[in-house]
């Protein structure tokens, strides 16, 4: 086998492993994008903004894959630089515009889910006094106040915690 033949064989194995790796990363990024979009949708966030971020990130991540596919032994430093530059601008824009809405949307959803579970599953020693709502729409702070009040054994402290809970709920409605 000549040097060229061996080099070609090594390159073939390089291509195989690059292909496997790129596919693994592509799937991982796809999964993350779907999860983020799912959370944004569940939370009632802006789907458009969430998608924008995902797409932008995916575009940045796809850079190496695209470069690898076409040029066997041609990916010199110049091309690397261009690829990195493109990825950078895509990432920057996406992250700036999309993070906020996706985050807000997803967390609203997560909070609502958590609240429901916490209240329904709550079995603290105390009981909620009259006039306290059922807590189904509690956010994290309200839920923590409620949990603290339900667990508190000191009547005075408990009443103060319920007062805090009432004030907080009034302030957030």
């Amino acid at each position: 086998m000549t040097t060229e033949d061996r080099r070609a064989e090594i390159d073939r194995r390089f291509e195989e492993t690059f292909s496997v790796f790129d596919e693994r990363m592509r799937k991982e990024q796809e999964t993350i994008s779907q999860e983020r979009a799912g959370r944004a949708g569940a939370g009632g966030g802006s789907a458009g903004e969430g998608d924008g971020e995902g797409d932008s990130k995916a575009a940045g991540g796809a850079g190496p894959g695209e470069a690898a596919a076409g040029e066997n032994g041609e990916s010199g430093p110049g091309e690397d630089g261009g690829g990195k530059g493109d990825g950078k601008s895509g990432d920057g824009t996406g992250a700036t515009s999309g993070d906020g809405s996706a985050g807000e949307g997803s967390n609203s959803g997560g909070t609502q889910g958590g609240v429901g579970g916490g209240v329904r599953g709550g079995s603290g020693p105390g009981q909620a006094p009259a006039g306290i709502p059922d807590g189904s729409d509690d956010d994290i702070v309200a839920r923590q106040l409620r949990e603290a009040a339900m667990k508190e054994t000191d009547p005075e402290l408990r009443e103060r915690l319920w007062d805090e809970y009432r004030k907080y709920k009034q302030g957030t409605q």
Partner: protein
Amino acid sequence: MHRIANGSTWRALRAACVVLALGAGVAGCVVQDQRPIPPVIAQKATAEIPQDELLDVGIRMFDPNIPQDPAEQEKRRIYPDVRKAEARFMPVLLRDTLEATGQWGQVRVLPSESSTSDVNVDARILESDGRQLQLAVTVSDATGRPWFRKNYEALADERAYKDVGVKPRDPFDNLYATIANDLLAARQALTREQRVQVHQVATLRFASDLAPYAFKPYLAQDAKRGTYAVARLPAADDPVVQRMDRVRERDYSLIDTLNEHYSAFSETIDEAYINWRKYAYEELEAEAEAKRKAMVRGLLGAAAVIGGVLAAQETNTSAGSAASTAAVLGGIYAIKSSIDMRSEIKMHGESLKQLGSSFQNEVQPSVVDIEGRTLELKGSAEQQYAEWRRLLRELYENETGLPAVTAETAKPPTGKR
């Protein structure tokens, strides 16, 4: 009118004054700074930076700095999973801050034991409770040159807590912007040649890690000082260099994918985290205020009692006696009031504990998830890296006709292999 000018009375008055002064001093220590705080703006690029001077920044996962001792954790109100979450959340904020300036190449959050970037940022969380944030930050570049080591401390910008729906700023945006500006100043202190060499050394160090027999000779390493320099550059058309470039693209791809995980993680915990910090901030403020009041009342009470007792010793009129008795009783009441405030302080302490435990329970699944995913992804990639190491070695031996092991100690190669 009674006379209060003898020596023992003056001593007692001085004691009372000292007590009062101490009280005022202690109270002064907890007086809050003016907030909202003026924003610090991270300086943005106003001109395009030449490609070969554009430095990539790697922000390693922060050191959560969790004490081993559970008692110490409780004393310092450190919740391990909350800290672990913060150690991932904060680098993302710093990354976004740096990216927004346009002063840098790629800015990435790196797993803690990740490979070297052009510029490397390490940070340890010293304090983070929603009210203040303290970070110990160390920055160096790929050549081993230290940029700076600095402790940052910031009080929360209360505006960030007042209207969380709009998400105006992180409460500690100023701290991240300050780090960004310090990084920029440190970079600007380098010459163009130094900046170019930083990027070259980072590339060679990566290559040397994967194929030391081929790339180590290009690096001049001062093991004693821990510094690196370019001995000479490999030929751009070297087949091993070309494959190495493509391997590095995969390394970037892996880190970019991990960064998407980190971004997703930050989004997942973002609202709960800001709410936890907001409420912890309020409780800490209230606790500090209650402590201040208790301290002042206690000290004023003590001063009144001391003054009343001394006045009683000196007076010989019924009116003076009544006044001194009133002073003593008033002082005792103030001391009792101060003691009563302990229940309020305790309540704030309990609230903080509940808040911390509750948020920790909420964030724990996300922390476990991100840790698991990172390990899985890196584990999977490690197999590929092992294969690439083998292939690079084979390629090197094929191109040079030299065994890779012995070549590791050889002199720098000349020209094309």
